[in-house]
């Protein structure tokens, strides 16, 4: 299963990176979300996969206490990562929106205010 999952993670990464390489901020933002998922799945797989046994020690699951539950630590790490990446995504999205308002484009090649295309050669005298 882990091999299959690895393949899926690979697809996630490929798509995310491809979107990151786009010229439109909105596409990059889609890439951000997918990259977040890619990383989460990566950590999840990295902590090894177990089928269907949640790490919860009560209720019906208590019966399964003797069984090997899914590794809880990567889950906690991913939860933290999900929350963080969601916060970043939201920020970036609003940033893109503001960029679109202020710079009147969402094409990153046209967003050249911090590093203008026609940069001035610094003075050569003294």
């Amino acid at each position, binding site marked *: 299963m882990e091999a299959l999952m690895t393949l899926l993670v690979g697809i996630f990464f490929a798509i995310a990176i491809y979107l990151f390489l786009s010229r439109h901020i909105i596409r990059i933002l889609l890439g951000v979300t997918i990259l977040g998922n890619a990383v989460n799945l990566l950590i999840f797989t990295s902590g090894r996969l177990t089928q269907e046994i949640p790490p*919860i020690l*009560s209720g019906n699951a208590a019966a399964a206490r003797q069984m090997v539950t899914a590794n809880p630590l990567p889950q906690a790490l991913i939860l933290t990562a999900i929350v963080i990446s969601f916060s970043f995504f939201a920020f970036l999205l*609003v940033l893109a929106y503001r960029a679109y308002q202020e710079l009147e484009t969402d094409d990153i090649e046209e967003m050249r205010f911090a590093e203008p295309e026609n940069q001035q050669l610094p003075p050569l005298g003294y």
Partner: protein
Amino acid sequence: MRTLIFRTVAPFLSSLMILFSVFVLLRGHNEPGGGFIGGLIAASAFAIYGIACGVSPVRRALYFHPMTLAGLGLLMSSAAGLLSIFAGVPFMTGLWVDVPLFGDTVALSTVLVFDIGVYFVVVGSITSMLLALEERSSD
């Protein structure tokens, strides 16, 4: 989106969702849930309320600015961690007290306070963001 139908139903939906969010928050220690998910549900509730009835009722309903709630949440969580200094144990150590109440006991803990702090932070931040997006270029 302030249609009659939506506007009429939304407040009830929202309060139901808030209720559910607290439920999810409180049971998180034993079953899926917790402060973060609870907070997200509550924030969604405010979002729905805002979309249906406008932002200002939500703001009035919250009384405090949502970001203030978020600050309060962080403060609570930090305080929950700091409490352990009085118990002579390291930062963020869970302290548990059983409080007898009406013949039942309620287990209160710094861990719970911490999780409630998480809840407030999430509610505050996400609501603030959603409301700010929902209302226009005002302010």
